[in-house]
Every structure is written in structure tokens, then in C-alpha cells.
């Protein structure tokens, strides 16, 4: 590995080190720069005193920049340890000890296009300053804290995310007594004692009375739910249904209310469900929901039902890159546990490769997972896709419903509630009560949020006007 001796203590550091690992000296401004053409022969080429030199970065420092660095850094003068020996000084013209010419160094991947693995500076994409877009900009200088982009642009960027007018870099904010107090004690609204007490009371009330089923009435479903119900309801028995389980326990509070009625409906239709997930916690979450769905339908036993109707595809790593394989060769992509699958189910998965699934159900907390499926898999197998998403993902997915790429969509726990009402006849009373309690709890939670936002805004408005 290429190393660079610290000019202060002599410790050998990797060339990419910004600071000495031993004494902490800033090495960025002391790393050797390639000698520009026409440089004075009196100036030694190799400042490391024979150590291996670091390969240059594309757009490395020019002569003028190096000179300015020397001028600005009093410590840049060569010390005894890094000054070349007399022998090296005696033969600078021969080029024997000079660094290799540029053509021999590991250059960029394409000559004029630059390095593919070049580290990207996000600021250069959101600022248009000459400094940011200068291809000869020295990235080591930027790393060392010398800002090369326009400060005014940085301030404008900060202004986008700040409430008050931005201050110049380095300037200290003028803390009036009120502002200082707020900064010390947090936002003024959060110090409203009565508001905190009210929220606490509402939360306690939600815990005490949240289980009343009467509060979970009259849910509202957006368009798309009818299509999902129709797609599942028209499935012939033993149809292969691929289920992409794209949520884990983090969002199970909302998503279980959506997933369970859909799984129940699929089981009612005697569909063969192949479940997989791209989240590590997905398969375990799916197992629990499927078990509850089977219990709700009063099936004989979980083992029998699972062996007959549900195949656990497990965890599929690789993110979006591995999804296309599900479109062209699902039997190769699904890591089915051999303990769960007998010969008949293996044949079913093989059939999945030949005919494709009769229906694909994407149960996703994020719109991204539905979008990935519609872009990476659906064009490859031309299958029918329906989705169940969280309420927040609904608006982002809905354009695909209107374009026809998505055959149906259920979103939000109100959508799940409407779907549940279509399955009332098959559900057992205990499960109905549990579902209503969950919906009621969600209602209380959102109700608290609405009250808190409204009261907090009013209190804040009143407080600011009274000052």
C-alpha cells in the first residue's frame, strides 16, 4: 500500500489519509503534488524523500494553487526529514527519481470522460458556481476546509431549510433574551403545559376507550378497491398468486389491517400463494399474518393449510437488481425452503416459470416497492398486478392505477376496513373484534395528531401575536 511519511513525526500513513494517524498533523496540504512542467529545477520533485508517491487525482492541483498553499501555510517549508538528500539533489535533470509520467499512472477509466469511480460532490450538482463546476478544482483543497464554492449560494441553500435569514459563515447569531431562552428550553410551543396535559389526557382516553368497536364505523375507500376484490374473487381454485411482502414490523400496525383481509380472501378462493419478501423481517411478518388469516377463517390446522395453499418463498436479497429474475425465471429466484415444499409444490413453482402467476399482489408500505415491481417485473411477465399500500403511499401509486399498469389498489387502513366488511361472513367474531379495535386505535392516534397540530398552531399563533 502506498504510504506517505508525516513531515512532523515521520509516521508512515496511507496516502489517502487526511491527518497523520500518529500526531494528527494535516497531511492533505502536505501531500506531494506532481511537478508541473517548467518548474524550477532547484525545487525538488519528490518531497517524500524517496517514499512512494501518491497517484494524482484527476484535475489535480496546478502550479499556482500549490504555490498559494505554500504561501498560506508557514509550515509548508520542507523539514529536514522530507528534504531530499544531496544525491537526489544532484540528479534532478536525469529524471531518475522523478515520479512516473502521467501516462504510466492509473488514470481515469476513459481518457476524456473522467473516472467512473470518481467520488461525486453533491454540492457541485446543486450549485452553479464556477468553483463548483471547475474540472480542475482540487478536491483535496475542498476536503481541507478551504471552500471553493460561492458562499452566497451556500447561504441560499441554507435559507431554503431555515426559518430565519441565514447568517454569514462564522458570524454568531444575535441571541436576544427571548431567543436565548427558546434556544435553551426548546421551542416555545412545546413548553405549553396545558397542551401537554391535554395530549396526555387524550392518549389515556384512547387507551381506555379505544377498544370500543362502535368508533370504527363508516370507513371510506378510494377508487381501486373494487377492482382488487374483483380480481381475487374471479380467481379459479389452485391459481398461482405471487405475493411480494414489502413491509416489516415497523409498519405492521397499519399494513396488517390491509394485508390480512386480502390473504383471507385469497385463501377463501383456494389460491396457491407464494410469498416472498425483500426485507429481512418480511417473511416472519408474513407468517404471522397468514397464520391469523387462517385462524380467522377457522381452517383446520396451520400446517395443513400451509402445505396446501401457502409456499414461503423467503427472503430475496439484491433489491431492485434481483427483481427482473422474478419476471423471467421465478423458480430460480425464489429461495424456497425444501422443508416446506413437496414435489407437487415444486411443480407449481415450475409452472410459475412457464405460465406466470395468475395474479401478483404487492403489499407495500412504500410506493417505491410497487413502482419497482411495475417497472422491473411486470413488463417481463405481463402479469396482472394489484397492490395494497399504506395511506401515505397511495397517492404516489395511484397514477399507475389510472394508467392501467395496476389492476387494483387498496390503500390505508380505511381501505382495509372496507375490504374487511366484504369478508364479514367468513370471519370469526374474535377476529372481527380485534380488527375493529385496531382500526379504532388508529383512529384515535390520528385524531390526537389532528388535535395536537391544530391546537399547537393556534397556541403558537396566539403566543407570537402577544409578544
Amino acid at each position: 500500500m502506498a504510504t506517505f511519511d508525516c513531515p512532523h513525526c515521520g509516521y508512515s500513513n496511507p496516502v489517502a489519509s487526511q491527518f497523520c494517524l500518529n500526531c494528527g498533523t494535516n497531511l492533505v496540504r502536505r501531500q506531494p503534488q506532481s511537478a508541473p512542467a517548467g518548474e524550477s529545477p532547484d525545487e525538488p520533485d519528490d518531497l517524500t524523500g524517496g517514499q512512494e508517491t501518491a497517484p494524482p487525482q484527476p484535475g489535480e492541483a496546478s502550479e499556482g494553487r500549490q504555490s498559494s498553499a505554500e504561501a498560506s501555510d508557514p509550515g509548508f517549508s520542507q523539514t529536514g526529514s522530507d528534504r531530499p538528500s544531496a544525491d537526489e539533489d544532484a540528479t534532478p535533470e536525469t529524471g531518475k527519481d522523478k515520479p512516473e509520467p502521467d501516462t504510466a499512472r492509473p488514470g481515469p477509466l476513459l481518457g476524456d470522460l473522467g473516472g467512473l469511480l470518481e467520488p461525486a460532490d453533491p454540492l457541485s450538482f446543486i450549485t452553479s458556481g464556477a468553483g463548483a463546476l471547475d474540472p480542475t478544482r482540487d478536491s483535496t483543497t475542498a476536503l481541507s476546509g478551504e471552500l471553493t464554492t460561492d458562499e452566497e449560494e451556500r447561504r441560499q441553500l441554507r435559507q431554503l431549510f431555515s426559518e430565519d435569514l441565514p447568517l454569514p459563515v462564522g458570524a454568531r447569531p444575535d441571541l436576544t433574551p427571548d431567543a436565548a431562552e427558546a434556544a435553551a428550553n426548546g421551542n416555545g410551543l412545546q413548553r405549553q403545559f396545558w397542551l401537554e396535559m391535554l395530549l396526555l389526557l387524550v392518549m389515556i382516553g384512547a387507551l381506555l376507550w379505544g377498544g370500543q368497536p362502535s368508533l370504527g364505523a363508516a370507513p371510506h375507500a378510494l377508487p381501486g378497491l373494487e377492482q382488487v376484490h374483483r380480481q381475487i374473487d374471479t380467481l379459479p381454485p389452485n391459481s398461482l398468486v405471487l405475493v411480494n411482502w414489502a413491509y416489516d414490523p415497523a409498519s405492521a400496525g397499519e399494513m396488517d389491517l390491509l394485508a390480512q383481509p386480502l390473504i383471507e380472501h385469497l385463501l377463501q378462493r383456494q389460491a396457491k400463494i407464494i410469498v416472498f419478501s425483500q426485507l429481512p423481517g418480511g417473511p416472519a411478518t408474513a407468517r404471522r399474518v397468514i397464520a391469523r388469516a387462517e385462524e380467522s377463517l377457522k381452517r383446520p390446522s396451520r400446517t395443513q393449510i400451509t402445505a396446501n395453499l401457502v409456499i414461503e418463498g423467503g427472503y430475496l436479497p439484491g433489491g431492485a437488481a434481483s427483481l427482473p429474475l422474478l419476471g423471467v425465471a421465478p423458480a430460480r429466484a425464489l429461495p424456497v425452503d425444501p422443508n416446506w415444499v413437496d414435489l407437487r409444490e415444486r411443480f407449481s413453482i415450475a409452472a410459475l416459470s412457464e405460465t406466470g402467476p395468475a395474479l401478483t399482489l404487492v403489499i407495500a408500505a412504500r410506493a417505491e416497492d410497487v413502482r419497482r415491481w411495475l417497472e422491473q417485473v411486470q413488463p417481463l411477465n405481463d402479469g396482472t398486478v394489484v397492490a395494497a399500500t399504506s395511506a401515505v403511499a397511495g397517492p404516489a401509486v395511484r397514477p399507475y392505477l389510472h394508467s392501467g399498469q395496476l389492476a387494483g389498489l387498496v390503500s390505508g387502513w380505511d381501505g382495509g376496513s372496507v375490504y374487511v366488511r366484504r369478508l364479514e361472513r367468513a370471519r370469526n367474531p374474535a377476529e372481527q373484534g380485534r380488527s375493529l379495535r385496531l382500526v379504532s386505535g388508529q383512529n384515535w392516534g390520528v385524531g390526537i395528531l389532528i388535535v395536537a397540530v391544530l391546537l399547537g398552531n393556534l397556541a403558537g399563533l396566539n403566543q407570537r401575536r402577544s409578544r
Partner: protein
Amino acid sequence: MYSSRSGWLNRTVLFIVLACASLIVASRFGLTLVPPVVSTTLYGWALLLGAFALLLGIANTVRFHLVRVQRGQREWLLSLLLLIVFALVLGAGISSPEGTTGLLSEWIFDAVVAPGQATLYALTGIFLLSAAYHFLRIDRPGGLWILAGAVLMLFVQTPFLYRIVPDSLIDLVDWLLSWPVMAAMRGVLLGSALAVLFISLRLIVNGTK
């Protein structure tokens, strides 16, 4: 960042990446010159690489925290805790013939993972509330509109409020979601796709000139 690879190796890697990308693009456009088995094989390799990257990530995490503990760096106790938990969960999975569906693994999932993740996610509500206090202010420019939109969406997504909210308001929100919001979302989808495409190309060709 310096690279120690030779230029020859870099060019070889670039050639392989370009060849794979060209094959995939050609197969997605339905060009017959690419046999389906080639693209299927490449997709399979992507899956393998994904699994291998996962293992590498685990190994890197373990190594990183081992070094922290070994050197006694700041908050090394948390690193030690992470390593202990990692060893316990790994042991629970390996020791059971059922693997991740074993009794101990299932208990860990039910008693630790699921409640932990749910709790962390539930804190989002608190963050949301805090953000609302800071940014959803009526007296900020445009704040009233943003606040009204947020509260309106919360209203119509809460089933029990349908008893309070008039039907006309629900119809209004349905219309908003079906037309202006969808138009905006389509614009966002198209715009973000184009932006990702151009930024990717810019990164690949280093087009900072």
C-alpha cells in the same frame, strides 16, 4: 480518493459493465440478437451479487465494531453490545434445525425485533408533531395552505371522522386526489426519473465540464 488499480484493470471493469448494461438494455427492448438465457443469467448473477454484498456488509460491520472495541474508541460499549447481540441472534438461527423459523429465532422476532421496530416507527408521530410545530405554521408564507392540506388528508383518512365531516368535503378530497394531486405526482415521477437518468449519466461520464 486514490485508486491503486492499474489503468488496464479499470478499462476491463468498465468494458464488462458496459457490456452487461448493453445486453440488459437490448433484451429489455426485445432485440432478438440477445438470447434470453444471457439476460436471465445476468439477472441471476445480480441476485448472487446481492446476497454476497449482504454477507460482505455483515462482515464489514463486525470488523468495524471489533476494531472499535479493540481500540477502546468512543462508545465502544455500544459496539460490544452490538457484537454480543449479533452473536446471540446468529447462534439462535444456527443452533436450531429449523433455522429462522426455530423457536428461539421466532421468540427473538416476536419479543425484540417486532416491538423494537414498531416502537421506533411509532416515534415518527412525535417527529411529525414536532415538525408540524416548526413548519406548519399558519402565519408562515403559504403555511395556511400546507396546514389545510395536511389536516384535510388526516381528516379523510380517519374513518370515524366521516361521521363529522360532510360528504361534500370527502368528495372534494377525492377530487383533489384524483386530479390535481395525481397530475402533480405524475410530474414528480417523470421529473425524478429524468433527473436520475441525467445525474447517472453525468456521474458516469464525469460531465462536470
